[in-house]
């Protein structure tokens, strides 16, 4: 896959960081405003897809990137399961128990364990969608050779 013109490249350089930041905002504020792990994760993956589409596939080492995103995806889903099991160790021993202190409603650090779930599900979704996209691109590159 070849890169696009210099106008597209410059615009992407300016915008991709902001898209990434917005994804992080949506994930972190998931327990306060609409959004959350799934939506924010897809926005994060969107910033990477924007970069790959505009700069072409020789700019980033695709196979290395794919190995990294697969690793992050599997680690994130593992952390989610560990967090869910941690409810079995504290308090009233229920799977998916919200055992951390709740704090005051409406503050950024509140709602106990829910922001942690949001963050790790966000990483998992972002890495999954990026991995699927990279697998499609690599498949095309390898089959055209």
């Amino acid at each position, binding site marked *: 896959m070849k890169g696009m013109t210099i106008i597209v490249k410059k615009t992407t350089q300016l915008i991709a960081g902001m898209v990434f930041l917005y994804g992080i905002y949506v994930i972190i504020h998931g327990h306060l405003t*609409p959004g959350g792990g799934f939506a924010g994760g897809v926005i994060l993956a969107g910033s990477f897809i924007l970069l790959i589409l505009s700069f072409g596939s020789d700019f980033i080492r695709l196979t290395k990137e794919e190995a990294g995103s697969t690793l992050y995806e599997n680690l994130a889903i593992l952390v989610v399961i560990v967090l869910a099991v941690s409810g079995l160790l504290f308090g009233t021993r229920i799977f998916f128990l919200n055992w951390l202190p709740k704090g005051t409603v409406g503050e950024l650090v509140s709602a106990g364990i*829910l922001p942690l779930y949001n963050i790790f*599900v966000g990483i998992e979704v972002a890495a999954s969608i990026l991995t*699927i996209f990279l697998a499609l691109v690599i498949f095309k590159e390898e089959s055209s050779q």
Partner: protein
Amino acid sequence: MEIAISIITGLMIVGALYAIHARDLLSAVIACGIVGYGLVICFLLLKAPDLAIVQIVVDTITLIIMVAVVLDSSREEPFSKPDAQGYISIATSILLIVVLFYFFKIATESLDAFGSGSLRMAGPYIEGATEKTGSANLVTGVVFDFRGYDTLGEATVLVTAVLGVLTILRIKGKK
């Protein structure tokens, strides 16, 4: 509001029908976009911003990937005239549609009006959720606390999908 939703749903049906019958694959993909973005407006009118955000982002990413795939392929869809078996299939599907509409009409008569009464389980969720979970966004409280198993299942489905894609789309073996 019901009129607006009806108009948008009609537009979505038109877009879906056009996507089936379009000769050019690129216009079919764009017509699929009408369905997705119409659904976004429906979610916003029904006061579900969480769903609207997820739908608009996922729809955009899917559209980008599909456009990239279509631009790389031949873009022309092979079209053939239906033969005898095709006409039998068409008649069967029309019969099925009539039967389904009949039972759908019977079923909707015994339901509450659209959007009026909440379900039996939704009442306790809405009443005590903010105190129980400490989350200002009720949807996150339900998704990650009351219905944690569902969310774990969704995340696992994504992981399984990635595993399937990586297994199928591999030409050279990994060292």
